[in-house]
């Protein structure tokens, strides 16, 4: 008995330690970024446009570019992703060849490195379609990149909605679409929002694909045809070209804050949406 207890304790301690490592890594990174970055944070840093290639001024245009590009990517990817997941889970027969092809495609897309999406976006949107380096080219590229994530998570979420909800709703005389809209989607919404949050993280954090498709202009983007530099791209260039490590950390700090704010807002809107749909 004593032996088994020791083994158990050792294993428990091991799991506890691995949990501790995760917390330590996260706290370490965020703490380091905060300590190094906080000195360059000021209201001017947030509200002023950059000058002298980022050596002076703030990063306001990159914040706007980041939000602009992320929002546009979601506007393109969410309807298509959620729509195809509804088709795959609710309408397609399990033996449909088309459904299997869509599944296979989205799985494959999910595994492709971002730089390849960037290269494709550059050749197709920027050059072939003549959109140039722009918010639009960048958003379309990012939309393609996050589409598999949104589709897969929405599929999972719809799949886990109890089959009994469907039967009960249909047995009350509801049509398929009424059942989907009033019972299935509200229940699947938390899962769908999780996919959207993951996608936001990917878009905000992406650099390579965005440099290739949206460019790295420091101007304020107004129309979707304008080029833009997102915060991550700005961070990359500041650090890579040795412009200012301090400001790179300042930008990193704001990226972390932005992601936290976006996640918070997403969860808040999820609650409101769930209430409204019910």
């Amino acid at each position, binding site marked *: 008995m004593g032996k088994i207890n020791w083994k158990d304790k050792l294993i428990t301690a091991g799991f506890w330690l691995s949990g501790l490592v995760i917390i330590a890594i996260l706290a370490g990174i965020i703490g380091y970024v905060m300590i190094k970055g906080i000195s360059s944070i000021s209201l001017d840093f947030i509200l002023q446009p950059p000058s002298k290639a980022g050596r002076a001024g703030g990063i306001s245009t990159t914040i706007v570019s980041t939000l602009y590009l992320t929002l546009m990517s979601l506007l393109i990817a969410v309807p298509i992703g959620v729509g195809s997941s509804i088709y795959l889970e609710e309408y397609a027969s399990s033996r449909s060849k088309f459904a299997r092809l869509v599944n296979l495609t989205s799985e494959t897309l999910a595994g492709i490195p971002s730089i390849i999406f960037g290269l494709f976006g550059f050749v197709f949107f920027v050059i072939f379609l003549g959109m140039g380096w722009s918010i639009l080219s960048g958003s379309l590229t990012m939309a393609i990149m996050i589409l598999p994530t949104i589709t897969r998570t929405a599929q999972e979420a719809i799949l886990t909605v109890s089959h009994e909800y469907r*039967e*009960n709703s249909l047995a*009350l*005389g509801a049509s398929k679409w009424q059942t989907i809209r009033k019972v299935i989607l509200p229940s699947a919404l938390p899962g769908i929002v999780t996919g959207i949050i993951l996608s936001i993280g990917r878009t905000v954090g992406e650099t390579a694909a965005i440099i290739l498709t949206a460019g790295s202009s420091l101007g304020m983007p107004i129309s979707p045809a304008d080029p833009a530099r997102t915060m991550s791209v700005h961070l990359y260039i500041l650090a890579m070209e040795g412009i200012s490590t301090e400001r790179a950390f300042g930008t990193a700090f704001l990226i972390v804050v932005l992601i936290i704010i976006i996640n918070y807002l997403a969860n808040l809107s999820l609650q409101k949406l769930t209430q409204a749909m019910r």
Partner: protein
Amino acid sequence: MDNSIKMRSVDLEVFYQDFQALHGINLEVKENHVTALIGPSGCGKSTYLRTLNRLNELIEGTSIKGQVYLDDISIYEKDVDVVGLRKRVGMVFQKPSVFPMSIYENVAYGPRIHGIKKKNQLDEIVEKSLRAANLWNEMGNRLNSPAARMSGGQQQRLVIARVLAVDPEVILMDEPASALDPISTSKLEELIGELKKNYTIVIVTHNMQQAARVSDFTGFFLNGYLIEFNRTSELFVNPANKKTEDYITGRFG
């Protein structure tokens, strides 16, 4: 009480791919009576129940031969509107499955999808349905709380209220008490007795005592065949078929 026939099936056969689940079922369901379907697991009684509101069509690869009539309408004809059929033939399932909404919204769900929008009209339907399901006294002042917080027995009565809210003529029940405790079960059985004044009820049950208690007619299914159908009082006391006798005396099943 009139003895007119509400639903009947004629030479009904059901196939899942190559497997034949039902063989030539001829059965009549009398209006304002409770008809119980009994038999061991896999005998086809639930399959039969689901042919009555065409819910079996949800399973891929199901095909049907023969006819099912609701009054004079053959419900498997091409021009029959399934939504309209399911509005007239409601269904209560084995596991009480309340939607993740408030009690009020659960009951209002059906009327809403059938186009009733006025608040006072919905209020009236919700109250009437909850009263008919013996739930108004317990839940009338908690209409806005989440339905999932109720007990299993209350949830099953809420599901019945939800069915009543679309004003059906026939209510199908698929082992409605199998997930309930004895007290909830007896409340449910009491409710079934009250409901048959206004509705026609077909109930599938595993529990023979339950069939004997609540039903007026009983059909015994075995291996996809309807072995015997008779007045409940007759079938349980004086079964005509040896297999029926073996089953109700507990020799198998």
